């Protein structure tokens, strides 16, 4: 897996032997009001006190030994580690106000404290990348209602990709093939320049794959428990496509989740779904309550794990079967959504509520999906099927 990753350690095993927790100062700046623009000085103990005017010019540091009133504030100087030594502080101009448009009543939803990053792109997208690859549209929507199911698929470009003028690297595809309804979602690896191409190829191939059809038939007649399978033919398709486009296969790296849904013969018996998962995109299920992330690895003590398996280099996928009752919703999502759902209860609640009665309109789904949530600036893709009449 040619992904340079310096953030996770395979030996991560969570926190052990946590030492005694001492009350610690809360990191300044997190959910606290900005410190007032006052220079704070502490009493000098190591040198003779001197009266000195503090320079107002932020670029000129006053001499290091200063004395003055020990004004106490929650400002940015912390002396918990030191004996009361002298520490001067220079005023700095707060950077230019970066209020996001999300908080100015433009109609964008937002959750949590306001993001500085605006959800609105700043420039039109180019029609192709520098290598001549096509650029997908900022937002993609597909949807339909059938007699016994409603399907909604939305994929939005992450707000940081919009800010930087980079393409959406998530992709999804929906189709009917071999007696199943197919849903596929792929998440292009961000550090790879053509991963949006890889994601597109992976999803389009997955929804029309004889290999997967025969796997699905086998899974439905066999045990529903999770089993490891390989996606060799998908990888081969991606590599063939890479050769056609004169690209490196690794530059098309992406995760992939696929669902093959077969409706029961009787209308009120719901459906069966065969699920494949390769990498950190995931499934969510809503059984008339909350959206639950399936197979979530819930190590609360761990830091954010940033490595993932990806096609075409990783071939191993987990495959299992679930039953869906009428009224249930099954969704495929990239981690831009699942991280957000896991971290933001209000967001999870609103996303789930869209599906409580019937499938939402695309615009209602887009409104929640594309909300402004500080620090969650990845592409977000959510493709769901609600089983049963409507």
């Amino acid at each position, binding site marked *: 897996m040619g992904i340079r990753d310096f953030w996770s350690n395979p030996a991560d095993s969570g926190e052990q032997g946590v030492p005694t927790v001492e009350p610690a100062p809360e990191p300044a*700046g997190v959910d606290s009001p*900005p410190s007032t623009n006052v220079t704070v000085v502490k009493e000098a103990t190591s040198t003779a006190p001197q009266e000195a005017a503090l320079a107002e010019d932020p670029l000129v540091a006053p001499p290091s030994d200063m004395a003055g009133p020990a004004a106490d504030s929650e400002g940015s100087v912390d002396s918990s580690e030191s004996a009361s030594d002298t520490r001067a502080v220079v005023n700095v101009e707060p950077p230019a106000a970066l209020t996001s448009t999300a908080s100015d009543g433009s109609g964008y939803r937002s959750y949590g404290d306001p993001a500085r990053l605006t959800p609105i792109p700043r420039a039109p997208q180019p029609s192709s990348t520098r290598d001549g690859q096509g650029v997908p549209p900022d937002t993609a929507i597909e949807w339909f209602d059938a007699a016994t199911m409603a399907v909604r698929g939305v994929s939005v470009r992450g707000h940081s990709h919009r800010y930087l003028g980079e393409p959406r690297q998530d992709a999804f595809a929906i189709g009917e093939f071999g007696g199943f309804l197919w849903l596929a979602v792929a998440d292009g690896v961000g550090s790879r320049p053509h991963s949006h191409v890889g994601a597109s190829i992976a999803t389009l191939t997955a929804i029309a794959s004889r290999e997967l059809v025969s796997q699905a038939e086998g899974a439905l007649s066999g045990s529903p428990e999770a089993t490891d399978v390989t996606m060799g033919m998908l990888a081969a398709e991606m590599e063939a496509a890479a050769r056609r486009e004169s690209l490196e296969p690794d530059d098309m790296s992406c995760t992939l989740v696929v669902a093959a849904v077969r409706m029961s013969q009787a209308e009120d018996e719901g459906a069966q779904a065969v699920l494949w998962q390769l990498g950190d995109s995931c499934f969510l299920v809503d059984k008339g309550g909350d959206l639950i992330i399936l197979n979530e690895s819930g190590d609360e003590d761990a830091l*954010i794990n940033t490595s993932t398996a990806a096609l075409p280099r990783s071939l191993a996928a987990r495959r299992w079967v679930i039953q869906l009752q009428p009224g249930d919703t099954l969704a495929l999502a990239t981690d831009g959504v699942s991280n957000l759902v896991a971290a933001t209860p209000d967001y999870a609640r609103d996303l789930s509520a869209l599906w409580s009665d019937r499938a939402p309109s695309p615009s209602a789904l887009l409104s929640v999906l594309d909300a402004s949530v500080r620090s969650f600036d*990845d592409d977000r893709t959510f493709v769901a099927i609600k089983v049963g009449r409507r």
Partner: protein
Amino acid sequence: MAVAATGGAGRQILPFYLVCDESGSMDGAPIQAINNALPELHQEIGSNPVVADKTMFCIIGFSDDAQVLLDLSDLSTVTGLPVLATRGGTGYGAAFRSLRQTIESDVKSLKAQGHKVYRPVVFFLTDGYPTDAGWESEYKALIDPSLSWRPNILAFGIGEADAATISSIATFKAFLADGSVGPAEALKEFATALTRSIVKSGTSATQEGMTLQAPDEVPGFTSLQVEPI
């Protein structure tokens, strides 16, 4: 420690720690170069919305002891930057101990507020050989594999810093001033590398999370191999 109300929303946060040598030999041009660079770093990071939304910055100065000069902060809300000041010897042990305690308490605090934390990044800058004995044990405690929050460390050496020591402290990248430019200029390049790393790491919205972006080369420095102690 109170858990601040956030409306139920946790964030994804990337913490950066600057650990800066304040020993006597840094007096004059070197410490001034850092002090001049900090407001620029503040401006650049604070005004980039992608970065401002998810990175936090802490400054620790060390000499005979180590002091947290700036608590882990959202730089865009900081209006007072500490002034680094030179003092005595070069106590690596105090630096690593302070770093370990500070990171541990910061990560705990952030998690208690419902945030998710990326692996912390440390930029360690020194101009000399350590003057304290036994600092290796503090260092080992900091990078202990059983600590889920152990940081990635980039080490920079100028002046009398020892190449082998710099190599052994770094876990990710190591740089030694090559003497082609004076210390003030080299430190300017260091500050630029630090700023760029923060900005690029924060904006590399890779689908697998944030990738630590650090230069392969820094003008005025030689890249060293990272060697464990």
